[in-house]
């Protein structure tokens, strides 16, 4: 009984702190906004040039000029601002955004991240991912622990082209929560287990150097 996508998003939402400026990627990260704790006030940044991103519009509120970076229609909030892409990435690259949550194809034990291309297949481009992981203060990855063919995605080294080197601080998978020592060589530390998941299962599905936190919590 591992976590569902919704449970992974809910767990990631616990990393949000009051006053944070946050950039959310596409997929599970987008779901995180549904689980923001009531006593926590965050501001969402969308790298196409919007700060203060509101929920999807009602049918009669749709405005073609208000989209997020996934090209989805969204709404304004009180205090929303718009700006150019250069200003947007000044926020990102300049370290003004507190947290980025995004998906991954592979994460290595030193924090290397691969999430933008698979050689030999059609490549879509990295969008803003390389800027986000290089510039945002804290980077959390939400991803399935193993690929569709059963291979671990938490590795000693990434096999795919990198999006960033030593950039990931934390991984949340369906099996649990993992701290990554991106500055040193401490590797991956399991700090929390998902419902019904055993340490043995995590070990079997992880190819990175793995330690178990002394205060490991079982959800």
């Amino acid at each position, binding site marked *: 009984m591992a976590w569902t996508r919704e449970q992974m998003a809910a767990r990631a939402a616990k990393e949000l702190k009051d006053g944070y400026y946050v950039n959310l990627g596409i997929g599970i990260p987008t779901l995180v906004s549904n689980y923001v704790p009531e006593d926590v006030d965050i501001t969402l940044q969308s790298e196409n*040039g919007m700060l203060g991103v509101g929920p*999807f519009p009602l049918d009669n509120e749709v405005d073609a000029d*208000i*989209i997020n970076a996934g*090209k989805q229609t969204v709404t304004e909030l009180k205090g929303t601002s718009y700006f150019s*892409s250069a200003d947007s990435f000044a926020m990102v690259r300049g370290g003004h955004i507190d947290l980025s949550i995004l998906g991954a194809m592979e994460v290595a034990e030193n924090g*290397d991240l691969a999430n933008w291309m698979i050689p030999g297949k059609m490549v879509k481009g990295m969008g803003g991912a390389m800027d986000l992981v290089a510039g945002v203060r804290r980077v959390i990855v939400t991803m399935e622990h193993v690929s569709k063919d059963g291979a671990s995605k938490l590795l000693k080294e990434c096999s795919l082209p990198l*999006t960033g080197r030593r950039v990931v601080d934390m991984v949340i998978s369906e099996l649990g929560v993992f701290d990554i020592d991106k500055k040193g060589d401490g590797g991956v530390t399991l700090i929390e287990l998902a419902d019904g998941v055993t340490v043995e299962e995590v070990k079997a599905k992880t190819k990175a150097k793995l330690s178990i936190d002394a205060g490991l919590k079982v959800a």
Partner: protein
Amino acid sequence: MANKVYKDAKSALEGVLSDGMMVMCGGFGLVGIPDKLIRAMRDAGVKNLTCVSNNAGIDGAGLGLLLEAGQVKKMISSYVGENKTFAKLYLEGKLEIEFNPQGTLAERCRAGGAGIPAFYTKTGVGTEVAKGKETKIFDGQEYVMERGLVGDVALVKAWKGDTSGNLVYRKAARNFNPMMATAARICIAEVEELVPVGQLDPDHIHTPGIFVNRILCGAPYDKQIEQRTIRKA
């Protein structure tokens, strides 16, 4: 003052186009793209273009129109995932692509337009993007050098403009337009509403008219939406 106002996109492009030119194009997805100028460029039949644009449009819209007409030789973009024509041309070897991280692309255009030939960024360090580029350590952190970009023509879209070329963008349609407007030898702006000089609040102008050489009103606009996402009441 020299007249900057043209009656339509076709006339605004006259004397500007040549095969092999580099086109800087505003917009993110289909939001804020210079739709009328792209269509006029397709109709003009100019070829072997290098297009600098965050995205490559979709099938049947935006730069997708130039791709379908076989007018593009190379794209410099950050994300092209929405375009099947793009995928087909690329896989057939008929199109070159240079991927730039989105923030690096924005800054390359900003820098080019500001007379800055190169800058350092930590984006892409240790990745394929940095291969073959100069790197340097500042304060213990590694950075990669990226070049400023200046094109032959910039095509931008604004909400309101005045007859002296001052521009105001609307909501998230601003995106890449302000940088593109500065980063070419000639900038052509299409606007939803063209007003006499003096009618825009000077404090609210996003792109000052010095950057805009030609301007036209492209109304009416039928704005397309790529991902119409709604919530229930």
